[in-house]
């Protein structure tokens, strides 16, 4: 597959960019932040995203989805990153749909159409360590009745407060750190013993701490095989990481554009600061870095669509590169804006906050460079 968007994908890009610019621009992010919105996103926008087919981007047509693939999902996330649009796209449309496609026929029939309609939200409750480490699962699932009893704490559950169903990784065997013995469960957050505490995060997105105390789940709520959840979890995470890379690419893109526009008009010492060579070289270097992040991200999304063997490596490449570039782009953005870049009144700071949060989500550049090195055998 040539490393380029198809005509269809270019159309999706154009419509996604138009949609988020109109329906969920940065000003909406600001008002969600200021109102301390409990969900962290607008349900109205999410309903429109479902109408556009975005919620069902990875749901098969048979289940009412648009089935546009990962490149399309990434295009949507990039447009969201450009506008800092908040929506349960990652948690539900990417992670949720990827998970449920591995479910039983019953599970698929129950959940996938709802996902595509934007009528049901999911959240992945996997991470326990503050630094992402997907095999670090201490939450236990002990046999109980015709199912299991769950106990544990999940510290960082994206969109956890708004979710209708939690996808919980718990241990039915093995020790903390093992990949074998991890099982995924579909848990209703309203069940006895589940408490979901909204956490206020730097990027004002929805996240929660989920505590599971003797939560009884049915055998039918196991997703995939018992003890075999890690493979599904990795699949979910890789889809999520590639889409996060795309979102960070959007964050980089707007940070960069805002900054270049700013230094073109801002004057100091009687000159446009964009005429100072040191800033020009830094901007030009940043331009190159954003281009590299773009290539790596597109490759990862294509690899997911092609079910390539090298998907994990390309996904880590994209997450590592796009993450570093988003941090660089937003940092350079604030620095080149000078004092006003530090004020809450100005938008550039939001991009820095989102870049950092996205960097820490599902593994930062250190995690992914380690994963790449291991993949390449060193």
């Amino acid at each position, binding site marked *: 597959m040539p490393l380029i968007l198809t005509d269809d994908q270019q159309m999706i890009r154009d419509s996604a960019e138009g949609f988020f610019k109109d329906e969920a621009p940065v000003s909406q992010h600001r008002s969600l932040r200021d109102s301390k919105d409990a969900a962290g996103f607008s349900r109205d926008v999410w309903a429109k995203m479902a109408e556009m087919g975005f919620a069902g981007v990875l749901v098969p047509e048979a289940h009412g989805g648009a089935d546009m693939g990962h490149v399309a999902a990434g295009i949507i996330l990039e447009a969201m990153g450009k506008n800092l649009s908040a929506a349960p796209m990652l948690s539900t449309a990417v992670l949720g749909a990827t998970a449920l496609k591995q479910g039983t026929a019953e599970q698929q029939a129950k959940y996938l159409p709802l996902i595509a309609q934007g009528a049901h939200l999911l959240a992945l409750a996997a*991470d326990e*360590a*503050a*630094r*992402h480490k997907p095999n670090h699962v201490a939450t236990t699932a002990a046999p109980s009745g015709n199912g299991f009893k769950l106990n544990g704490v999940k*510290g*960082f559950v994206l969109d956890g407060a708004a979710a209708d169903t939690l996808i919980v990784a718990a241990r039915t065997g093995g020790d903390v750190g093992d990949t074998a013995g991890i099982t995924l469960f579909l848990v209703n957050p309203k069940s006895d013993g589940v408490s979901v505490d909204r*956490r*206020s*995060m*730097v*990027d*004002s997105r929805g*996240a929660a701490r989920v505590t599971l105390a003797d939560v009884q789940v049915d055998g039918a709520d196991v997703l995939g095989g018992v003890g075999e959840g890690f493979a599904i979890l990795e699949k979910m995470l890789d889809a999520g990481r590639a889409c996060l890379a795309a979102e960070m690419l959007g964050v980089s893109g707007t940070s960069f554009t805002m900054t270049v526009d700013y230094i073109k008009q*801002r004057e*100091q*010492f009687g000159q446009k600061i964009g005429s*100072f060579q*040191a*800033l020009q070289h830094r901007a030009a270097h940043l331009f190159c870095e954003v281009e590299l992040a773009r290539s790596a991200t597109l490759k990862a999304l294509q690899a997911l669509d092609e079910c390539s063997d090298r998907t994990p490596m390309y996904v880590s490449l994209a997450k590592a590169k796009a993450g570093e570039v988003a*941090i660089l782009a937003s*940092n350079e953005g*604030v*620095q080149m804006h*000078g*004092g006003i*870049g*530090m*004020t*809450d*009144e100005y938008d550039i*700071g*939001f991009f*820095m*906050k989102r870049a*950092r*949060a996205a960097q*820490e*989500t599902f593994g*930062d*550049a*250190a*995690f992914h*460079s*380690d994963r790449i090195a291991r993949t390449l055998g060193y």
Partner: protein
Amino acid sequence: MADLETFRAETRAWLEANCPPEMREPIRDDDDVCWGGRGVKFKNEAQKLWLERMGAKGWTVPEWPSAYGGGGLSREEAKVLSEEMRRIKARSALSSFGIWMLGPALLKYGNEAQKLEHLPKIARGEIRWCQGYSEPGAGSDLASLRTSAEDKGDHYLVNGSKVWTSYADKADWIFCLVRTDPAAPKHLGISFLLFDMASEGVSTSPIKLISGSSPFCQTFFDNVKVPKENLMGVPGKGWDIAKYLLTHERDMIGGSDSTGGGQRDSVSNIAKRLIGLDAAILADTALRTDIARHEINALAFGLTMERVLAETKSGQGTGALSSMLKYYGTELNKERMELLMSIRGSDGLVWEGEEKGEGDLARSWLRSRANSIEGGTSEVQLNIIAKRVLDLPGA
């Protein structure tokens, strides 16, 4: 030297007798720091007593002449006082821009009447000062300031506004750069004016930062009448005073405030605690490499501060190094905060929470991004090094 030992003994005895026990505790909260001023709210009686006693001896400003409310101590005596205070962990009795910034400038550029009027009140913490330098839109190009002070015979009429005025909403007086001669070239025509923030036509509004609320304000002047005797130094030569003070500020930001000292826990200790070891090395090799690289630079930077200080003391100084310390120190501090954010992972992203300290890291990280902007941007420091130290030609 015998005199100095006598002085030490006396000082020790005085401190023992006069420093309240509460003032020997480490500083824990913002309100443990006393900034003085007309509207001062002491946290407790001890804080008030401590300021009064130290102010009466002039030991809030030990090296200032006693005629101006200072302690009249020699450099050696002041050092002894500082050592003895450190010995009993005595807090500083007064924090004040008057002491750190205006005072030295007043001593150098002020006339006798101004010194007698202002310095004692600074020393006793009676008047709290703020600094009016930056203006909206000026940024690094400080000298492009537009706040005007029109000569009206017996007074100046001040119009304009200042930005990034720390604690303007709490200050009693302001020292302020104004343009007294609009026809003169940019760096000329600037004067240094002192006036009361209670004057009619002065108003302030706080600035919210990306890290949350801040001590910074925007300050507005709308036909403020300032007596002509409040001009400090020579009219039109205010830029010289500004430059003198900027170097002071740069040293503070680069050298101490933002990079802190040895008392802070090292990045590697925090990483060890939070991430743990695996076969005796940090259980994340990429972070380990980045942390080691950072600590190498932080150690070498700390040694450089030590060396520059020693060279300055001995007169070997290579000079003009404050830009280096400001540039490198603030860049290192930003890097430190980035590393701490990486180490803390998702916990570092918390903005608000029930437990005390939650959100602190994220806010400190965001706040650190201003280090390389305030007090002269990193770019300006590099320009200064290029021009003044390396003598590179102008563009």
